[in-house]
C-alpha cells in the first residue's frame, strides 16, 4: 500500500478506545441475539415453513406445557423441532436480554456502547484516516471433527475483528492473504474498513492488496 502511495499511520488509542473495542463483542451478541429472537418470532409453521403435526402435539402430556394454550403448544412444538441448537440458543439469549427486568442492563447498555463506538469510528474515519486496515480473524478455524468440543462462547470470540464495523454500520472488505508456508491451507485475512459511502476507495485499496498475492 505504501508503494502505491498510501500513508500509513497507527490509529491512536485516543481515537478508538481499546475499552470500547473489548466490549464491542459482548454488545454485538446482545444486540444480535435480541434482533434474532425478534425476527424469528414469525416462524410458527402456520403460514409457511416447518410444522409439527397436530396429533403429535396434543399427545404430549408434558407438565411443562400444561399451562400453555393449544395454540402455544402447537407453536412450541413446531419451533422446537424446526430450529437448530445454535438458533435456539440465540433466541433464548435474545428473549432474556429483552425481558423487562434485564432490558436496561443488557440491551440498553449494549445500544449505548454501540453508539459510543460508532461515534469514535466515524470521526476517526472522517478526520484522521481514510481507511482502517486490521486482521479479519485472530485465530484460525478449528478442525471439523473437533466442532462439538468447542465452547459456543469461544466460537463467538472469532468475530471480535469483524464486529466493530458491523456495529458502526461501516463498509468493510476482507481480502485473503497468501499463506506463508506452502503446506498450510489457511492464513489470516486482511480487512479494510472505510467511512460510509466511501466503498470506491475501499475497493481500490482492496485491489492493490489482492494483487499483492
Amino acid at each position: 500500500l505504501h508503494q502505491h502511495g498510501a500513508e500509513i499511520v497507527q490509529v491512536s488509542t485516543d481515537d478508538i478506545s481499546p475499552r470500547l473495542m473489548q466490549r464491542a463483542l459482548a454488545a454485538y451478541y446482545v444486540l444480535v441475539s435480541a434482533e434474532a429472537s425478534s425476527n424469528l418470532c414469525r416462524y410458527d409453521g402456520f403460514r409457511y415453513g416447518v410444522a409439527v403435526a397436530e396429533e403429535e402435539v396434543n399427545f404430549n402430556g408434558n407438565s411443562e406445557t400444561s399451562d400453555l394454550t393449544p395454540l402455544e403448544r402447537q407453536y412450541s412444538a413446531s419451533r422446537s423441532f424446526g430450529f437448530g441448537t445454535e438458533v435456539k440458543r440465540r433466541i433464548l439469549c435474545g428473549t432474556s436480554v429483552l425481558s423487562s427486568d434485564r432490558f436496561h442492563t443488557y440491551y440498553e447498555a449494549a445500544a449505548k456502547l454501540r453508539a459510543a463506538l460508532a461515534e469514535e469510528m466515524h470521526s476517526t474515519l472522517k478526520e484522521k484516516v481514510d481507511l482502517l486496515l486490521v486482521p479479519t480473524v485472530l485465530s484460525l478455524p478449528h478442525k471439523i471433527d473437533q466442532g462439538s468440543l468447542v465452547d459456543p462462547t469461544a466460537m463467538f470470540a472469532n468475530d471480535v475483528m469483524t464486529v466493530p464495523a458491523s456495529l458502526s454500520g461501516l463498509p468493510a472488505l476482507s481480502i485473503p492473504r497468501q499463506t506463508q508456508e506452502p503446506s498450510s491451507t489457511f492464513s489470516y485475512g486482511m480487512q479494510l474498513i472505510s467511512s460510509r459511502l466511501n466503498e470506491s476507495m475501499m475497493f481500490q485499496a482492496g485491489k492493490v492488496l489482492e494483487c499483492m498475492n
Partner: protein
Amino acid sequence: TPYKMIIHYQALTRRILTHPRIRRDFSQWSVDSEKGVVCFQGKPRYQTVIGLEIHAQLDISTKLFSGCPVDGNHRGTGCGSTSPTSLSSSSSLSSLFQKPNTSVWPLDVAVPGVLPRLSQEAVQAAVLSAAATKCELPRVSRFERKHYFYADLPLGYQVTQQRWPLAREGRLRCQRSNRGNKKAKPSKKSRMAGDDDNDDSFTVRIERIQLEQDTGKTVIMTNPKTRRKESLVDFNRAGRALIEIVFYPDLRSSVDAATAVETLRSLLKHIGTCSGRMEDGSLRCDLNVSIAPLENMDQEKTSITTQNKDHAIVQHTGNRVEVKNLNSLRQVQLAAEYEAIRQAEAAANGSPTLQETRTFDVKTNQTVTIRTKEVAKDYRFMPEPDLPPLILNEEVFGTPGMDLEGFLESNLPELPEDAQRRLKTSYGLSDYMASVLTGDPPAIELFDTAVHHANRQLTMDRERKKVPETVANLLCNELFALVRELEMQRLIEEGILDGTGETSVRFSRVDGNQLGEVVALVLEGSISNTMAKQLLRVLYEESNELKQFSAREVAQKRGFQLISDSVELAKIAHRVIAENPEEMERYKLGGKFARKITKFLLGKSMAASQGNAHPERLNEVLVEVLEEIAPLSKE
C-alpha cells in the same frame, strides 16, 4: 314453575338495567349514569373513574407498512399521495364485503425477506388527528416492536410507538347533550364560563397518540366435517394503519365516557382521518374502570390521582379492570355501569377485584373475564431496527420547505367547535342550525359561499340582515332533502356509496352560488318562499340543461315571479271578496271591523295566490278593490 320464574327474573332484570338514569342491581347497589356515583341502598359510597383507550383505523388508501391497497383491488398506488382526506368511502364498501385473505401482501403475513416502508398518507392523517385534539407533536418519534404470540399477529410482534409516540398531552372538549332539546339556548353559565367545566361541557385530557399496525381478525367456527370448534384467521385487516389514543382517567361516569367516544368519533370523521364506524370496527374502544371511595360521602374531597395511567389504586377498592372490544356507545355505557357496581360490591364485601381483562357479553349486558392477569404480560419492547426515526419534516409533508405549521394550516379543516362558534357569532345562527351544518363539513363551505354570493346581489342592508337565516333554512330544510331524495339512493344503487353513508351536500348538484342567488331573489322580493323551494328543485333536477343560466334567468323563464301585476291581483281580490259575503257585511260596519276584515281578506288572498303574491302590492290592490266595492264613509 321454577323455569318460568327464572325467565321472568331475567326479563325483569333486563328491563331495570336499561333504565336510562339509574342502573340498579338486585343486590341494592346502584350507579348514577350521569354522575358515576355508586350507591348502596341509596347512599353514595364510591365514585366511578374511567380511562379510555381508543383505536381508530386511518382512512387511507394503503396499509401502514406494506403498500397493500386497503380495498384489495380497485386502487392504484396509494403511496406518495399527499391528500389524506380524499374520498375513500368506496374503500369501506369493498373492505366490508371482502373475501377473507384477499387483501394481503407478503409483509402482512410476515413472509420472510420483506421490509416495512412507512406510508406518508398514514403519517399525515395521524398528524392531523393529533393536531385536531390539540396535542403536542415532537419533531421526532420512534417505532418499537411489541412481542407476543398469537394467531392473528403474523410477525410475532406489533410495530407500535411505545416510548416515543407521535403526539402527547392533548385534550378533547365534550358537550353533555341537552336531553332532546335541540333549540335550547346554552345556559348562561356555560356561555360565560369559557373553558371551565360546568354542567354542559367537560374536557378529557389525552395522554398520547401513537401510530401502530392492526392485527388480523380471528373467527371461531365449527368445522362441519370434524364437528370441532376451529379458529380461523383473516389477514385482510393485518397491517392496516391505526392510531391509538390514550386518555387520562378523567372521566367520572358512563354517560361521560360514551360522550367522549362520540365526540372523538365525530371529530375524526369531520377531519376525514377516520370513518368512525364502531359497528364495522373502524373505531374500537377499550375501557379502564375503577372506583374510589367517597371520603365522608363528599364527592369533591375524594382523592383520585389522575397523573398517570395506572390510576386510582386506592386502598381496599381493587385494581383497575380493562374491558376490551366494545362495539357501540351503548355497550360502553352498559359495561362501565356494570363494572362500577361489580367492583363496588366486591370491595365492600372485603374482596376487592383483581387487575384483569374482561370482555362484554351483549346477551347478558355483563362483563366477563377473559383471563386473570396475576402477572403482567412482558412484551419485550425493542426499538424497531428496520425503520428510521420518524421526523416530521418536509419529506413527510410532501412539499418542499413545508414545516408542521404550514402543513396544518393548509390541511387541517376548520374544527367543529370552531365552526360552530363562528356560525353562531358571525351569522347569528341558532345552536341547532349550527350543529346541523357542522355535522356535514361541505355544508359549511356551501353556506359560506351562498351567504357571500347573496350579499353581493342585494343592495339594501335590511335585506342583507336576513341572508344567513334564509340561507340556513333553505340549506337545511330544502337542499338536504333534495340531496337525500335524488342523490343518495342512486349513489347507493350504483355502488359508489354503501348504505351507511350519511346525506351530505357534497353530492349536491346545486352549488353555493346558485343557492345564494335564490336567497337574494327571495329577499329582494322577486320570488316568494314557496317559489324559492320550487326553483331550487328545478335547478337541481335539471342541473345539466340549466347549467349556463343564472338562477335569476331560470326564475324568469319558468315564471317564478311574485305576482305584482295589478290586474292579476285585482282578480284574486275580487274572487276572495266574492267568496266571503259574511265577512264583507262586517267590513261595511267600518272602523276597527274594517281593519280586522282587511287583514283577514289579505290572508285569504295570499293563500289564494299560493303565497306567490307580492305582499305589499297585494295589500295596495286589495284596499283599492275594497274601496271600489264597498266604499266606507269617512269618519
